[in-house]
């Protein structure tokens, strides 16, 4: 997605225009779309090089590389859209490794007929998210598929980050006795998406939590707490993430239901639809496993950051060769929090 060749004629009609096949054809129309829409929004020195790839300076450490495709439906939802989601999703995947996110790439798959005005909104939101995160989009690609062969727009992003020396966060490092700390309320994103899907005719003041977590994570690393593992519980929710860590580390977990924050409107929506918030997606939350003696200071550091204000210790890792995640319910009983079965909701992110 470079600075592109010169083109003649009128500027893009962003207000009324639509994506057509020529926008992915490699010719002047594509160059114009890239120049007037993408390059203008994402403007940075690497993108301005205008070559097939971005030439980047040596990052000075071990690299983390992550990639994430975004197919969310609807494209615009309360609290965000596919554009900012595509930035946050990949920034978070890099950040939960403990790395400082440096650069992103973005691939757009556009459907013929998609309004340029919507595309411009999405790109603007993506550029704003990238600016706020301080992680520029340094390379990109655009493809167009025929009408009915896509669903408006899909965005795949990849991110590169650099690791501080010596740090190792990994899902296989949880040990019995470790504490589990959650950065805030769960299920906001999943229920926000659900509340605006037309066939549910469900209306609630629920806003997606989509956010870039690397600032919070930097504060957590600075706290000096002995972190074993960080994960952002996206698709499949907190339950799925904890089961993944339990399986990787060969441990069990015991959660305290009363300690897990769920906003009242989100809880009500879950109740209404018969969904369990533990399995609903988040896009701006993380769960940390840390040495139990450091949990207090980690929690304090998290609560000082706007994205960790509602952080809470939600349970502990324990020995269990069966690798079960269990939960003490508010009622005082015990249940399992098993892997998600099937698909709770398609196209959540």
């Amino acid at each position: 997605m470079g600075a592109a060749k010169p083109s003649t004629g009128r500027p893009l009609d962003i207000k009324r225009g639509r994506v057509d096949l020529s926008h992915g054809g490699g010719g002047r129309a594509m160059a114009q779309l890239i120049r007037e829409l993408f390059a203008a929004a994402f403007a940075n020195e690497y993108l301005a090089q205008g070559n097939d790839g971005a030439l980047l300076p040596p990052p000075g450490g071990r690299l983390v590389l992550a990639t994430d495709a975004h197919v969310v439906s609807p494209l615009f939802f309360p609290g965000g859209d596919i554009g900012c989601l595509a930035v946050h999703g990949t920034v978070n995947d890099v950040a939960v490794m403990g790395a400082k996110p440096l650069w992103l790439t973005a691939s757009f798959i556009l459907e013929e007929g998609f309004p340029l005005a919507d595309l411009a909104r999405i790109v603007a939101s993506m550029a704003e998210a990238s600016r706020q995160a301080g992680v520029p989009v340094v390379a990109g690609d655009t493809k167009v598929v025929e009408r009915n062969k896509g669903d408006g727009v899909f965005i795949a992003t990849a991110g590169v980050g650099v690791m501080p020396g010596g740090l190792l966060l990994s899902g296989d490092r949880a040990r019995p006795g470790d504490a589990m700390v959650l950065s805030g309320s769960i299920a906001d994103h999943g229920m926000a998406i659900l509340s605006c899907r037309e066939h549910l005719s469900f209306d609630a003041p629920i806003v997606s939590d989509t956010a870039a977590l690397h600032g919070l994570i930097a504060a957590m690393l600075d706290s000096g707490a002995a972190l074993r593992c960080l994960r952002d519980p996206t698709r499949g929710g907190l339950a799925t993430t904890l089961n993944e860590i339990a399986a990787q580390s060969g441990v069990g977990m015991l959660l305290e239901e009363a300690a897990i924050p769920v906003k009242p409107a989100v809880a009500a929506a879950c109740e209404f639809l018969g969904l369990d918030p533990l399995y609903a997606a988040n896009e701006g939350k993380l769960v940390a496993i840390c040495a139990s003696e450091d949990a207090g200071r980690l929690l304090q550091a998290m609560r000082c950051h706007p994205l960790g204000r509602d952080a809470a210790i939600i349970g502990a890792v324990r020995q269990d060769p069966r690798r079960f995640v269990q939960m003490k319910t508010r009622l005082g009983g015990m249940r399992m929090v098993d892997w998600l079965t099937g698909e709770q909701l398609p196209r959540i992110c």
Partner: protein
Amino acid sequence: MKYVDEFRDGALARTIAANIFRAARPDREYRFMEFCGGHTHAIFRYGVTGLLPVRVRMIHGPGCPVCVLPIGRIDLAIGLALERDVLLCSYGDMLRVPASGGRSLLQAKARGADVRMVYSVADALGLARRHPDRQVVFFAIGFETTTPPTAVAVLQAAAEQLGNFSVLCNHVLTPAAMHAILSQPGGAAIDGFVGPAHVSTVIGSAPYEPFPRDYGKPVVIAGFEPLDVMQAILLLLRQVNEGRAEVENEFVRAVTRHGNRKAQALMENVFELRPDFEWRGLGTLPNSALRLRPRYAAFDAEARFGLEARPVADHKACECAAILRGVKRPQDCKIFGSACTPDNPVGSCMVSSEGACAAHYSYGRFADREAATA
């Protein structure tokens, strides 16, 4: 959350649990059947079992709509979707139940059939309005709770003369299944029922009165919240201890003796009794299910497409039938948790979270192995 948290309160649960411990005599076992899958789900999801004395055993009943539907009926829906090019809608869990050859509606969808998950029959009606060129069939399942909405949809379709909407009706009746449980050969080894919550809001408490009278079994109607279930268990214990057998209503905030007459009138208007109907686990039961009345035949998918269900045997190793009758527990089935899991269910009870096997697998199996290894 107001009006919900009150019924999930830990302190109240401890009080009721203490009363249950006091009431349960140490010299005997109590076996109560929660009829509804909604109760089964609540018991597991909130961990109620762990708050009960071991001598109070909960037997999971057949009140799970997708569990009791026999394979032959699901085959009808799959056939319609795959071979007749209809737009077939049903509730989410129904799509995953394996039918003949292990096929499900979800697999039919992957093979190109137009199968849609809907949250309500009104959504199916909406699809019919939006797709006048397609035949839209609503695969209607459920007990008396989901029946009145289906009746409303049929009446709306009739009023709008929606010629492309029909219902493949599988609505079944709760009291018929309770009779079947109690009149099993050798009798049912249960001491009483936790009676349905939502079903009872529709039919009222009166239809359960034959069970104490004719079989000597108490029925306590309870809401779907965990404290409702615990309170109902306490009331059942007291009835058994005192040698009483009555219908008691714990769910007074929603259930009256005669139920929702308007809903009953809707059902009466649209549906009539089938002479008999096959249930998974319970066999063919007379007067246990509904079909559309002849005056609404135009909206009856069975009439429109000339369908007839054929009985199909369950998977040989599957114990769903015995589990639905309350004779076996999920963990007694040889394939529970091995060949049959929620991701790859063999039997219907492993599909819905209201099914005894799925609920036990997803929420409760930690206790089996703890018991086994203790």
